[in-house]
């Protein structure tokens, strides 16, 4: 092999490796990879009936940068988002993340070998949707992920299970609390809810 060939080979390899660290992963790859990693964590558990704090931490790491909690929180809150300042927004996003992580984790703890299959992403400018099916024996549950393009790649901003949008359901739910006690009441209720969930395990 002469020098030129070596350089070409090196360049070719570099090009092949690039997608792993650059932000060129498509929406389907992003969510499919995230779900596979999560399943990997779940399968590696010593006790298959629950999640330990380490498992939760491992899942958090897998999701990090793939779920846009801020966008989810903003869409779930609706109008009041415009009226709160940056500190409050960060605080609200954090509460939202904790609530979701807890509950999502509790669902995941029930994992018992279901298969997940993905369809190709449909992309419209900066938004994409990826349809998937959770297959449990002969029963299938359709789960759809909505992603949007961010500076650090595609990120999930909504999950629809059997047609029910998580963010949209939160939006209506939050609206009810907002109507009765305003933003402060909403934050307080969320804090209580999270404390209760944490005390539960």
């Amino acid at each position, binding site marked *: 092999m002469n020098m030129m060939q070596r350089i070409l080979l090196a360049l070719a390899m570099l090009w092949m490796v690039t997608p792993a660290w650059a932000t060129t992963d498509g929406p389907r790859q992003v969510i499919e990879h995230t779900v596979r990693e999560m399943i990997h964590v779940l399968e590696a558990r010593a006790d298959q009936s629950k999640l330990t704090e380490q498992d939760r931490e491992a899942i958090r790491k897998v999701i990090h940068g793939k779920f846009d909690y801020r966008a989810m929180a903003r869409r779930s809150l609706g109008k009041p988002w415009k009226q709160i300042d940056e500190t409050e927004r960060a605080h609200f996003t954090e509460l939202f993340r904790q609530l979701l992580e807890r509950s999502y984790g509790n669902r995941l703890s029930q994992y018992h070998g279901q298969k997940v299959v993905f369809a190709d992403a449909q992309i419209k400018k900066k938004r994409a949707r990826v349809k998937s099916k959770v297959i449990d*024996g002969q029963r299938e549950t359709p789960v759809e992920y909505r992603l949007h393009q961010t500076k650090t790649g595609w990120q999930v901003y909504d999950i629809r299970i059997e047609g029910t949008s998580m963010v949209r359901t939160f939006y209506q739910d939050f609206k009810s609390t907002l109507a009765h006690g305003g933003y402060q009441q909403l934050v307080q209720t969320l804090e209580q809810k999270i404390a209760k969930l944490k005390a539960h395990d």
Partner: protein
Amino acid sequence: MRRTLWIVLALMMLGGCATQENHYDPLEPVNRVTDKVNDSIDRVTLKPVAQGYNYVVPKPARTMVSNFFDNAKELNTVLNDFLQGKGGQGFQDLGRFFINTTLGIGGLVDVASSMGLPRHNEDFGQTLGVWGAGQGAYIVYPLLGPNSVRDTPDLVTSTVTNPLFWIGLTLAPYVAIPLTALNYVDKRARLLEASNMRDELALDPYVFTREAWRQNREYLIYDGHPPANPLQQDDGWSDDDWGDE
């Protein structure tokens, strides 16, 4: 009788035109009370029973039970396939019913799915939706839970198309009671995950359930391709528009 039915149908269509809002809920005060009562009864009866059932009965057996009750509902699916003009799917589902009832031992095993005849989900509420009827008022029925004006007639069609109802009525009334009980335990067991999620996530469980239920019904009516929701002034929520939906 027939006349009354048509009048009821006509009224429901009218109701449909007048109620484009998502959270049209004129019965909310009554519904909230029913929901509370249902929930407190559920917590001490059906929920613990369903949890115990999940714990004691192994998964394959539970799947058989679910298959059995789903197969008994298959004729309602067939009826509504045809009513929605889905002739091909209607014959497929009829084939499913015969195959699963015979080869699948009374519906315990869903052999039809592995033969390329997948399960479909249709009922009379969806048919009325396809025909253009709006949801009408959201109703929480005692013990039965979330429902609506549009989904109420299905309580009748799903009963009269169910062979178990006729068997129980004519041949063996004494098996009807334990069978009905098992049906409810099976139903509740399948809803455990969803109800746990509601308990964990919902700030206002009533609104949370109403919204999740409504979206799921919409999804079923459009067979998984509901249209994007246009921005509504009172709603403030804007959906992403995906051409084909």
